[in-house]
């Protein structure tokens, strides 16, 4: 797919649980769309969004698709800048080393820098 304009830096801030609403899935779909158009993408998990990274999800039991499995395929879509806010992880007793996918744990200050360096920011 050809890109007509120079790519934009787009930061997605995902702050919702994976199965409690459609927001986490919507965020992933937006990330995949932006990736298809070869934009420069940052994906940031904050607050309850870090629950998307919980290991060993088996959402078949609630007839849902495994969101963490889809997240694990993001490098294939050239989405490699994936972050999780350390404070949000520790507040939920999540160990950055034992998540479903590899993410860079980062501070709120680092997220502030990502926002400043972005053309567009989506939060959902």
């Amino acid at each position: 797919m050809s890109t007509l304009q120079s790519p934009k830096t787009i930061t997605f801030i995902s702050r919702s649980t994976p199965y409690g609403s459609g927001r986490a899935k919507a965020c992933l779909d937006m990330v995949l769309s932006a990736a298809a158009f070869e934009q420069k993408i940052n994906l940031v998990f904050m607050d309850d969004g870090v629950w998307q990274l919980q290991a060993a999800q088996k959402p078949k039991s609630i007839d849902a698709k495994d969101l963490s499995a889809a997240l694990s395929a993001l490098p294939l879509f050239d989405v490699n800048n994936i972050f999780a806010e350390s404070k949000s992880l520790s507040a939920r007793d999540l160990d950055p080393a034992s998540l479903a996918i590899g993410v860079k744990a980062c501070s709120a200050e680092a997220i502030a820098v990502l926002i400043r360096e972005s053309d567009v920011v989506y939060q959902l």
Partner: protein
Amino acid sequence: MSTLHTVNKTAADDALAACLRVATSGDSLLLIEDGVYQASTITGHPQAQVLKLFALKEDTDARGISLPSSVTPIDYAQFVELACQHSRSVSWF
């Protein structure tokens, strides 16, 4: 370079707290819809001191909310102006 943040949730949601963690000096924060219920408490927040604070007048009027002096009331036309004055906007909803 600065960012316009909009928040439309009450304190029952952690949207404002998340916004305040990543908003930086010179950014603007606009409270809209149910976000205006946080107008009086936000001024005590240390991170809010470095931000320019606004609330959408239509939404405060509708809810009978009066604003502290540090929060500037703006209307929809000024909302548009504000958005144009910033490099990007983030909707914390």
